[in-house]
């Protein structure tokens, strides 16, 4: 069958199961858009290409499948860079398709020509230029395999305009992927495995560090069995949240810089850490010299380059988390661990009295209250998409996720502006799920143009802006480490409710605690997107906090006296 390269692309995407493409047209990708119009693929017109990549990323994270973003050459492609890097750092399977100038113009500084494969080389798992229509189907199929296999990541396919326009014989069978042969390594020997078994069964104070890899490998069921068989308490990384139900008594909560105090103390006191699908990021470990000194370590991880990168381990089981856990499970023995679990409970009790939820109501609106109320009102069943900063940490602390893939957040890169577009992507992936954006007033202003995308696509999500008039997390660092010199962190924002109205979206502004729950209820009941501007305490901080590079057990705790400042009108 003779098809143009553009038609081959659309046909290939369709056959790969793609339903939604998040993109923005332009000159060098026009042939593809022309073919898109004749295909069954649903194209979502974004307002900025960064939004397209975050949407594809949010789609991938909420669904477990591959998200697809599309842009034209030059500025269209460079606008994708932040979104690609976000997907790279969080191992998210995203395929980006960019148009490129015709192959005869390559390297000539033609209009809107940029070397996007050169630019994105260190932030993609793989990227490739396609200059022949014949190669399009095979390359796109390869891109999907690379993006989703092993440790997932973004792949960029740059297609020249002449390749899109040229005709070629389309044959799905003969355009099968031809990835280069790879050496099959022996991931670990039997001795390494036996050492892990021995460590597991001998441990008196074990702790599991559960990461994103559990979600990626779909290991939730075997992980649950593993945890209960061994009676092993679980600490979560930010991206691991959701891989194990928050309401399980063995789930301690989040670890790290803003992890719960009892979790960090448990890590420091454990005699064995079992890290599953996590990479000992500096936000998780704090100072490496004082990190978990008493613990032996087992690392279950698919990426060989992560082994012994930050933390030296005693047993490294390289492989897919699900496969490794399935092998370990029959060898794992049950232990009572009464002393250890009891000790963790004591630590937890000590923290609970400092918790802001337990403090008397001062009439002030705290972000933690808003998120706690949101959790209760949604029964913890919503997909929550967060940005980066204080609100993100409060969400991780106070919204208790029981379902896998119900928290979508930018962890590794910490990308402001991620939440709103990623939530749009998540909604397309899970149209029947309730989706909430929880975002700061700073991050929201970075990508708020995507409100128009929501309106154009007629989708229903809810947006909770945690508005404290500051770039809150940076302000917090300035408070703690720069003697309260608030340079460039006080932030003027538009009236978000009025702004929403201008887009044709219902907007609300909440300044008192009594209005929180009724407004959340009314937003949930509405069939259209609702934006709620929560004017929260301006100078509240996220506690506890391990200062960057500090020892994990030396945390800054919430002071006893509540804050007096209140939210002010703009």
């Amino acid at each position, binding site marked *: 069958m003779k098809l143009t390269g553009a038609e081959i692309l659309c046909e290939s995407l369709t056959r790969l*199961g793609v339903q939604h493409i998040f993109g923005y047209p332009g000159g060098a990708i026009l042939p593809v858009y022309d073919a898109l119009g004749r295909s069954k693929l649903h194209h979502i017109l974004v307002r900025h290409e960064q939004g397209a990549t975050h949407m594809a990323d949010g789609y991938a994270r909420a669904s477990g499948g591959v998200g697809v973003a599309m842009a034209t050459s030059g500025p269209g492609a460079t606008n994708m860079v932040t979104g690609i890097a976000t997907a790279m750092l969080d191992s998210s399977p995203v395929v980006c398709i960019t148009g490129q100038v015709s192959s005869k113009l390559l390297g000539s500084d033609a209009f809107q020509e940029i070397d996007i494969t050169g630019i994105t080389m260190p932030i993609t798992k*793989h990227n490739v230029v396609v200059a022949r229509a014949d190669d399009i189907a095979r390359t796109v199929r390869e891109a*999907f395999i690379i993006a989703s296999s092993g440790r997932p990541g973004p792949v960029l396919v740059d297609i020249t305009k002449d390749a899109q326009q040229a005709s070629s014989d389309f044959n799905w069978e003969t355009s099968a*992927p031809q990835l280069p042969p*790879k*050496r099959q390594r022996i991931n670990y020997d039997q001795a390494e495995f036996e050492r892990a078994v021995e460590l597991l069964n001998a441990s008196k104070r074990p702790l599991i560090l559960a990461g994103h890899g559990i979600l990626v490998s779909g290991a939730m069921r075997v992980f649950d069995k593993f945890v209960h068989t061994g009676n092993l308490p679980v600490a979560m990384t930010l991206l691991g949240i959701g891989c194990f139900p928050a309401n399980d008594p063995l789930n301690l909560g989040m670890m790290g810089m803003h992890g719960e105090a009892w979790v960090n103390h448990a890590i420091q006191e454990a005699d064995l850490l079992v890290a599953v699908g996590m990479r000992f990021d500096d936000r998780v470990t704090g100072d490496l010299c004082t990190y978990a000194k008493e613990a032996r370590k087992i690392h279950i991880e698919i990426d060989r380059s992560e082994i012994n990168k930050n933390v030296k381990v005693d047993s490294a089981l390289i492989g897919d988390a699900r496969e490794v856990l399935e092998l370990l499970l029959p060898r794992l023995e049950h232990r009572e661990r009464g002393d250890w679990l009891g000790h963790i409970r004591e630590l937890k009790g000590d923290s609970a009295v400092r918790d802001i939820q337990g403090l008397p109501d001062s009439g002030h609106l705290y972000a933690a209250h808003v998120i706690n109320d949101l959790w209760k009102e949604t029964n913890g069943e919503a997909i929550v998409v967060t940005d980066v900063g204080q609100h993100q940490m409060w969400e991780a602390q106070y919204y208790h996720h029981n379902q896998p893939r119900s928290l979508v957040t930018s962890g590794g890169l910490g990308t402001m502006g991620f939440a709103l577009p990623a939530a749009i992507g998540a909604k*397309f992936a899970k149209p029947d799920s309730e989706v909430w954006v929880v975002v700061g007033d700073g991050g929201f202003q970075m990508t708020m143009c995507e409100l128009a995308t929501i309106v154009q696509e007629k989708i229903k999500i809810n947006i909770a802006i945690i508005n404290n008039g500051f770039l809150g997390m940076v302000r917090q660092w300035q408070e703690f480490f720069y003697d309260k010199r608030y340079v460039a962190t006080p932030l003027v924002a538009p009236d978000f409710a009025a702004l929403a109205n201008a887009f044709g979206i219902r907007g609300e502004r909440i300044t008192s605690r009594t209005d929180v729950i009724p407004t959340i209820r009314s937003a949930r009941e509405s069939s259209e997107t609702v934006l709620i501007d929560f004017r929260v305490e301006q100078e509240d901080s996220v506690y506890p906090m391990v200062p960057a590079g500090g020892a994990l057990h030396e945390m800054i705790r919430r002071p006893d006296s509540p804050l007096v400042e209140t939210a002010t009108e703009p």
Partner: protein
Amino acid sequence: MQTLVAYVENKPGVLNRVASLARRLAINIDSLTVGPTENEEIARMTIVAHTDEKGAHRLEASLEKLVDVLLAENISDRSLIERDLALLKVSADQQSRPHLMELIKVFRARVIDVAPGSLILEVSGTVDKIDGLLEVLRPFGVLEMARTGRIAMTRGSDLLRPPKAPSKAKEPEPVISAAK
């Protein structure tokens, strides 16, 4: 100093990926040689890097993550043969020439070009040997030097062959979201 061997796809851009990776890991490459293998689709690289064993492990493991790298292996602590090739243009007049020829013999170098005022020598061997020759030639006046950088091969039955098994990775199952 660590020595790695890599088999890579013989196509444009692969050298850039390998070099870019070393740069990102802040590993200084002392020498990198690349040439085709008996299979023209596959090239072999020898990378000599200024790093320790831990750095070499990261480089090796990160290299193998690249789609175009078929295999990467740190062979530093294996029994291996290393060779470097140098071309040296040395000043040589009537007086110095006989003396030069003596040295060339000792180092088993070859004279491959003779001009009225200079000679071009070809010498291969270990880095130490070539450095040694360079040292003794300096007083005569080394006008130009070109070196290939090291190539390396493990000895005897310790084979390092490019893999043949096709990739096992499968096409992802389509994830269909509910119709909207």
